[in-house]
């Protein structure tokens, strides 16, 4: 049952077949040695131990990857681009006027107010001369390492569909996220840790909750593993042996179990899944030590901890997650997603600044600014930015006009907003795309979420049109039937 096991546990048969074939042709044509050796290594690991789930279906990347891992910082609620990274001086001049000439204005809450200049002053930073508002004094010092996309467009102006789209490419629930696709496509680099880890905001989960890191239709092992980020709780459920079971009892019971499972597997030769079960229990036992080690900060210097802002109680929560992100990718986790905010409510714990943008963005900005800047600096000085892609997004931007006349907040704005990336394979300090004079619509190089996803996959060595999974009649892709790699930003 060996080849059948491959697909009951990994993919559909067509896929395996195609990919085996692809593997042969790609090795014949002399693919990058790195990819090949990692492939062989994975194949070796995969043999008879699907538990490790080592190999992805790609077997080898489509081209030599620039990035090996991704950290995605997600700021839920909708960060105002015109108050952070998209400097629109014309907005100052137009302050207080109605926005005209852009067709029917159709904001989420239906009450377009008047154009409002940025609530924060902007200054220029770095050799790139990048404009950043006073909201981000620390991130502002990193601008020469960032690559900006100023004309990003998403489909929905409601939080959850827009969150889903940024994470999974689709506005509906139930599609696998970027991290799951990578786990599926590339396999794992460290079998003792999950491939895709999510670090939710310590104040709560985002809208749509666990749906944001679901494996969708991909096999369950590609699901994001959400670490508990509350202090003094186990980062992963069921990691510890229950206190009522002594270590000696557990170890003897495991030994007996392994004996039975080996016998059962022997009675069914060729059923690899049964052998994989034995390996899975061994791996689980190793994870019982590898995960506690990864989340133990005692080996980090005081200076490093301060760099992230762990000495300030306001920033300590997110700083811990940023530092943990670095430790996880150091240990081979491929995709770490951090949330800088939770679900809706009042007082708000995300960027959804309907009522009072200054107060809301100030509160959120402090939480994000120093820890994230610390992470970028730490990655850079350790040389990790070379092959790590850092991605910062929200689900959409905010209207350049106020919500309602006389309002102090801004409404949801999917038509144009800013995203930045940093690290592996990108041209640093570059600004791609432009919004119009007031930041309402793209003026140049409109970028869809599909384009962003295609580009990210490209950086990881994957052709977004060829990473597919057959589900319910369609060869599904992260980018659906859209998306173009943005060549202009590639170094």
């Amino acid at each position, binding site marked *: 049952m060996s080849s059948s096991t491959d697909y009951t546990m990994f993919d559909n048969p067509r896929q395996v077949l195609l990919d085996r074939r692809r593997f042969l042709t790609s090795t014949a044509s002399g693919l990058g040695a790195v990819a090949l050796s990692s492939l062989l290594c994975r194949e070796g690991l995969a043999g008879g131990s699907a538990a490790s789930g080592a190999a992805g279906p790609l077997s080898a990347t489509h081209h030599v990857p620039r990035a090996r891992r991704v950290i995605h910082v997600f700021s839920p609620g909708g960060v105002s681009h015109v108050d952070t990274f998209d400097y629109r001086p014309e907005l100052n001049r137009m302050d207080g006027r109605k926005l005209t000439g852009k067709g029917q204005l159709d904001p989420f809450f239906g009450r377009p107010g008047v154009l409002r200049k940025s609530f924060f002053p902007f200054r220029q930073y770095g050799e790139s001369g990048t404009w950043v508002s006073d909201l981000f004094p620390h991130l502002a010092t990193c601008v020469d390492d960032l690559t900006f996309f100023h004309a990003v467009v998403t489909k929905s102006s409601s939080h959850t569909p827009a969150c889903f789209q940024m994470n999974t490419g689709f506005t509906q629930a139930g599609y696998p996220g970027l991290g799951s696709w990578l786990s599926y496509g590339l396999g794992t680099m460290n079998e003792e840790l999950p491939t895709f880890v999510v670090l939710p905001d310590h104040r709560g989960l985002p809208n749509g909750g666990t749906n944001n890191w679901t494996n969708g239709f991909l096999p369950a092992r590609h699901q994001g593993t959400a670490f508990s980020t509350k202090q003094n709780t186990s980062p992963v459920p069921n990691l510890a042996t229950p206190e009522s079971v002594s270590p000696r009892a557990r170890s003897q019971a495991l030994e007996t179990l392994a004996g039975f499972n080996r016998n*059962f597997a022997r009675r069914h030769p*060729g059923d690899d899944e049964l052998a994989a079960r034995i390996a899975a229990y061994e*791996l689980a036992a190793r994870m019982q030590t590898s995960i506690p080690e990864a989340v133990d900060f005692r080996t980090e210097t005081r200076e490093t901890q301060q760099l992230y802002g762990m000495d300030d109680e306001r920033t300590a929560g997110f700083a811990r997650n940023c530092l943990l992100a670095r430790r996880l990718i150091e240990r081979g986790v491929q995709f770490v997603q951090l949330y800088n905010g939770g679900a809706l409510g009042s007082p708000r714990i995300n960027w959804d600044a309907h009522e009072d943008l200054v107060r809301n963005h100030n509160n959120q900005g402090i939480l994000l600014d120093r820890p994230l800047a610390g992470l970028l600096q730490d990655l850079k000085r350790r040389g990790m930015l070379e092959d790590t892609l850092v991605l910062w997004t929200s689900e959409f931007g905010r209207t350049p006009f106020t919500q309602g006349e006389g309002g102090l907040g801004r409404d949801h704005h999917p038509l144009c907003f800013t995203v930045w990336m940093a690290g592996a394979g990108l041209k640093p300090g570059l600004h791609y795309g432009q919004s119009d004079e007031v930041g309402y619509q793209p003026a140049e190089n409109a970028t869809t979420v599909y384009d962003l996803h295609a580009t990210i996959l490209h950086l990881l060595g994957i052709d977004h049109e060829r990473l597919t999974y057959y589900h319910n009649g369609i060869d599904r892709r992260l980018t659906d039937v859209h998306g173009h790699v943005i060549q202009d930003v590639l170094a």
Partner: protein
Amino acid sequence: MSYRFCWPLALFLVLTWPECSLAEDVAKLERTSGRASQDAVFEETVAPVLVRHCLACHGDSDPRGGLVLTNRDSLVKGGESGAAITPGHPEKSLLLERLNDGSMPPEGRQPRPAAEEIAAFRRWIAAGAHWPEGRVLSAFEFTTRQRAGRDWWSLQPVSRPPVPAVAGHADVRNPIDAFIQARLAEHQLKAAPPAGRRTLIRRLSLDLTGLPPTVAEVEAFLADASPDAYDRLVNRLLASPHYGERQARFWLDIVRYTESDGFENDKFRPHAWRYRDYVIGAFNDDRPYNQFVLQQLAGDAVAPLRQQSILGTGFLVAGPWDEVQNVSASKAERSRAHEEQLEELLGTISQTFLGLTVNCARCHDHKFDPILQADYYRMKAVFDGVDHAEGRKVGNRPFFTPEQSARHAAQLAPLRKELAGKKKLLADIESRLPSVAESVEQQGAIVAEGRFGTALNAAYTMAASRSQPGFQQPPLTVECFVRCGRPDSFNVFVAQNEKSAGDHWELYSYSGKGDFSVYLPGYQPSTIRSGKTVTDSQWHYLAMQFDGSRVRLLVDAQQVADVAVTRKKEPAAPGQLWFGGYLPQKIGCDGLVDDVRISRGIRSIDAVPTEPLKADETTLGLWSFDTAGTRRFPNRAAEVPSDQLKLLLNQRDELVARIPEIERKIESQQLPLAYLGHRRQPPPTHVLLRGDISSPGDAVLPRALSAIDAPSSDFGLSADTPEAQRRLEFARWLTDGRHPLTARVMVNRLWQWRFGTGLVQTSSDFGFHAGQPSHPELLDWLAAEFVESGWSVKHIQRLIVTSATWRQSAAANLTAAQRDADNRLLWRFRPRRLEGEIVRDAMLSVSGELNTRPGGPSFQPWKVEVFNTHFYHLFDSGEPEYNRRSVYRGNVITGRDPLLDVLDCPSPAVTTPDRRSTVTAPQALALMNDSFVQRQARRFAERIVESIGQHPAAQVEQAVRRAWGRPPTGSEQRALMQLVAQHGLEQACWVLLNSSEFLYLQ
């Protein structure tokens, strides 16, 4: 349309005939005279070439180079490069030239036209290029290497093939075996020997009912020597109520049955479970599949109407629904939501019943199957009237027939009348009685030093009181003292009734500026802001004067707002009054609230009071919050003479006792509700170009798929046919016995449920992606048998599980494995892991904890926290309610069971036609350490001790028999006894629950 039936033959000829004989045949055909034979030449030699090689680019829509090759006129007329052919003159025919020099089809396009195809084409031109009258070619006619055409196998009528004769001593128990054995013989393979009886009873029980057999059941079956012992076992299990519980789970996966909305709010659907029970009942009753389909699509439109058929329509709203997007103020956003929802629904309907992905044709013609974009919108017209809610009013509805409802209403009328009268009387009395406020949600001291005496410490609690009818009736004056220092969030000081009520009013400070504001959702404008900041940590005296048409706000006796308002929503029944917060949305107030007074009429306010507020004749309510040491704050408006007060109190007590009695009586006779959604008569349906809501194209009528001729996809419906009628006609089309897909798709699912893999592997996709079935004749035989048996699901199930094929052992056979590793030919029974639900149920079963109570509302192992979004905080409980079968667990999208999750239970948000079986480390961790598994191991051990006593050898033997259905071997016995001796029986039970033999069907 009869020419279509020639295609398979034509294709056969083209693909299989040796070159010379094809040419000879064509020549022969050409020699014969007459229009009919000329038509035949065209159909057999020309049409296939054009369709397979040319129409992908030169079809009717957006033709390359302006050249259309679907009809004779445009062929002769040609495109930008001139005429494509000149009849009678091959040498002057550009098309032929391009074919000959290989420039068309363009480089890279496969397959290339064969030389003899081109030659035949040439002869056709030379002979005058006869084109049958009115014939228009379509790219969807033939299957090519790139796509399926209308000649695709699954779209052809089902015909009952003869049962093959099988030679030799093959074990043939029914026709299934004959088909399987014949294929095995073709590949020089043999079926595995029959499985042993112990294996069979365990396999059969787990597969049909999802529960392992008890030790006694195993022994009884082993001891039953009668020849029909197995058949009787099958019958017993098919008749078990657990049969439906097990089979329903498969169906619920396919129809992505969810008990919560998903998306942003993920609200729980308390009445959705009735559809789940409907499905279980349908399997248990062996409801004919055609009825089952009809009821789910149009059970509210069939005659005679029955409760069961109405409940079936829960199918239409079984999936997720985005409340927020559907009630968005943005019209574009609402339309988008509707289109997305319909795509999801059409995808589910077409995949579930037709095995086709019609949803792929929303933006363009289907890339792989003969489904036109227009087909998508025609089918959308059938279901366009289906929605989950009407605005925010969700679709929980009674499911009685109209006659039952009318009878019921008449029965209840006297009681309802009595209740209304008594309630009115009570309201009247209560409006004259003072109400007491009580502190709720304490997180600290409930009072603090106030403006006068103590004040409500709203930072740590809020207070709630019954609202009196007078509180909602303008003219009205509300006064209060507040001290608050938090401008950055909303602070609610006093709020009357729920925000959704037309008479809600609320005194609060607005987040940001912290200015005193009033919210009146029943009026226009609804938000009145004073601009006067009151969140400066100073005491302020706030007042609202509201006469029904104007609202005046005063801060410290100074008027700060004066706004005219108009009513837009009717008042609701009195609800609650909240002080220092608004509980339903958990909005608080970070400060102090003191002396709240509600007065009838407009009270004049000239100065800030310097002493506590007093009650007078206009006072409806006054709360001073001066009662330290208790949670209760009396309403000091008790200004009625005491005798009268006593009388009123007596009357009230009587009413308060009587009203719930009547209510209970009515409640006990109340029509139960089901989550059935909302239906509306849709506006005319248009094709949306590229699926874009802002680009409507032609209007379309409700129809089924054009690729299917019989039964006809044209029901003769018009744009104003009632929506229920549309669904009914569509369902009738599906359940017509001639339908090529309905029966094939369902028997294939039944096959997959029993063998793990279908004859068609992609059980929800019978299109191009499906490839060919492993046993096409068997599939058709089963489909025909299914329809002829009256669409009996149990009949097919019985045929399968009594077949020798299903009863084979799981033994490996290395020769067979080398030739057919996937076991598609079924040379053995392939072991597979139990689904997550069955793992959980089997654990409960062997531990003796299983609560077999069937049906009814789902068990809900969570606490819901509503913080705009619904958060499901899971808990693990060993109470009997939580030990029910997994199919009765509330199937909510963001509150999934982590143990079931790691065992590959899918999200209820998406349709899942087949479960995967992964093996992961988190799965091992869960099976090792999850508190549920620990508890089952403990209870398992306790039960063994209860029944066997303290004899280790007997304990171990009993535990193994329960878990594995067999006695332990000597070495197994020794290993377990050693474990028991050193660490107790519980550890041995834990090992058994974690063992592959327990977790696998073999």
